[in-house]
């Protein structure tokens, strides 16, 4: 698959503070790419640089195989974005907002097309209501409609589930997956929620303090071949003896009180459990630890 977006060595400072620090990543065509990090990690600053709202101090951005700095207008014509809050013209109606953003993206659309677009986000019935009367969820959906109205190839959504209720979050997630899987759009979605990314992203990057921590396929990052397996047992003396006599000794990575951590393939958990039962070792809990979540928290929390 070809890369739709390539970022190389992107850096942005605000006085002495490095908001984005030598960031490099790439997004492939047709995938949902998760952009993960705590609040203030540099996600929005990066997105603003992708949208040419902020000028990078150094680094390169290539979108659709072209340098952003030299082909700004051409590239932006093919990007739809919702950056942070979906702020729109509150004194205008939904259809008026949509028409403005369609026109500014260089396309002419009929009212019928605009209504169809509003229908896809469930706002057709409120098309002629002023945006100031909308709930947060409705604004979020209208923001998405404005980002999609010109049928862009790359869609950038900055914290799209912020402020939504559980149903709104599920709807947004389904819409993102539908755009990717059914319409073959490429989406860059930022969030600070790992579980959100797990449910919709194909690949992802985790950043902290503007730096890349890890990048890769979600399936590989969240479900690695070798997992960290955690065992809690009150029989820790017996377990230590058992382990000393078996091949599991080479898998033991940590032991603290009644907690033992091993590294081996998850498929071998039942085999390990069987040996524990046969040896008469009491087990309080046994299972894989979400290593990425542990890793994310350990890297991003002070």
């Amino acid at each position: 698959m070809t890369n739709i977006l390539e970022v190389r060595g992107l850096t942005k400072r605000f006085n002495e503070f490095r908001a984005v620090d030598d960031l490099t990543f790439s997004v492939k065509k047709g995938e949902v790419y998760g952009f993960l990090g705590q609040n203030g990690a540099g996600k929005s600053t990066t997105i603003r640089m992708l949208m040419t709202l902020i000028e990078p101090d150094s680094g390169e951005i290539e979108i659709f195989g072209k340098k952003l700095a030299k082909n700004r207008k051409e590239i932006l014509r093919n990007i739809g974005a919702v950056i942070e809050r979906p702020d729109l013209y509150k004194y205008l109606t939904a259809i008026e907002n949509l028409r403005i953003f369609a026109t500014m993206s260089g396309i002419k659309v009929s009212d019928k097309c605009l209504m169809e677009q509003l229908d896809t986000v469930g706002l057709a019935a409120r098309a002629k209501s002023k945006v100031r009367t909308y709930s947060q969820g409705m604004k979020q959906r209208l923001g998405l409609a404005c980002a999609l109205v010109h049928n862009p190839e790359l869609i950038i959504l900055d914290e799209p589930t912020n402020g939504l209720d559980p149903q709104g979050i599920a709807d947004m997630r389904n819409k993102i997956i539908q755009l990717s899987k059914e319409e073959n759009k490429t989406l860059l979605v930022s969030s600070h929620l790992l579980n959100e990314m797990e449910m919709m992203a194909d690949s992802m990057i985790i950043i902290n303090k503007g730096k890349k921590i890890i990048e890769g396929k979600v399936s590989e990052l969240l479900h690695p071949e070798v997992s960290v397996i955690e065992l809690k047992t009150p029989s820790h003396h017996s377990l230590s003896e058992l382990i000393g006599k078996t091949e599991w000794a080479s898998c033991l990575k940590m032991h603290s009180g009644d907690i033992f951590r091993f590294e081996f393939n998850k498929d071998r958990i039942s085999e390990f459990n069987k040996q524990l039962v046969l040896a008469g070792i009491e087990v309080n809990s046994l299972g894989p630890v979400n290593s990425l979540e542990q890793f994310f928290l350990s890297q991003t929390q002070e």
Partner: protein
Amino acid sequence: MFFTLLRIELFKIFKRPRTFIAFAAVAVIVVLVQFALKLNGKDFIELYTDSQTDTFEIPYEKIQNGYFVCVAVLHMILIHVPLLVALIAGDMISGEANLGTLRLLAGKPVTRGQIIMSKFFASTVYVALLLVWMALFALLGSILLFGTEDLVVFKETDLHIIRSHDVLWRFFAAFVFAALALTTIAAMALMFSVFSDNSLGPIVATVCVVIIFTIVQQLRVPVFEETVNPWSFTTHMLGWKGFFYVEKTAEGETINGSIENPAALVKSGLVLLGYIVLFLAVSISYFRKKDILS
């Protein structure tokens, strides 16, 4: 694309209720002045003719006509209209930043220069429409209420008498000049707007600058008369009055179609144009580099 942007900007301006405050204010002020002059026009004219009542008899009924009332309205109103223009132009960029729509606007396939220019021209159209509105009320309304006669204009102790058939083109020219003056204010408010992320700051800053320069101009002390006033835009904004000062023959007869000091008018026009170019250049160069964080 530029005209598309301009159309969008005008659509946004005229969809906001605050836009119509200025139109309502102008209508109210003009009607108030016309009402006052209808009832107490003689007292008003006496303020100007005090020193001349001993020399000859003043024909108040003839002086108090539609043209005279319109000039009086312009004298009063054009001092205050800049505040109304600042209300719209000062909100052009900062209002978008405050609303959060600036990042959507700047993330579209248009240049930052195009954004500024479309907003500037939208402000100019707004100014022009405001002046057309003012002309309708102040000129047309006054003609209907007071009728037409020769226009008498007071310039300090001097009297300028313009024949009624020589008046209308002067009003047209004066309104065009006033449009240029108010466009200068719009350009300045837009410039302040580029530097700010809240709506109020640029509006207040514009109003303060106009007040400061107006006070400096009215002090009439040599230190300002020789240094600041020749180049202050508030001095040149009053240039429209020049269209109502006429040349006279040696016998004191008005020369039809003449202007007393056309060179001063041209200078004022050029100074105002220079300010507009300066304000726009500053706006564009700053906005092109501005990190949009709102």
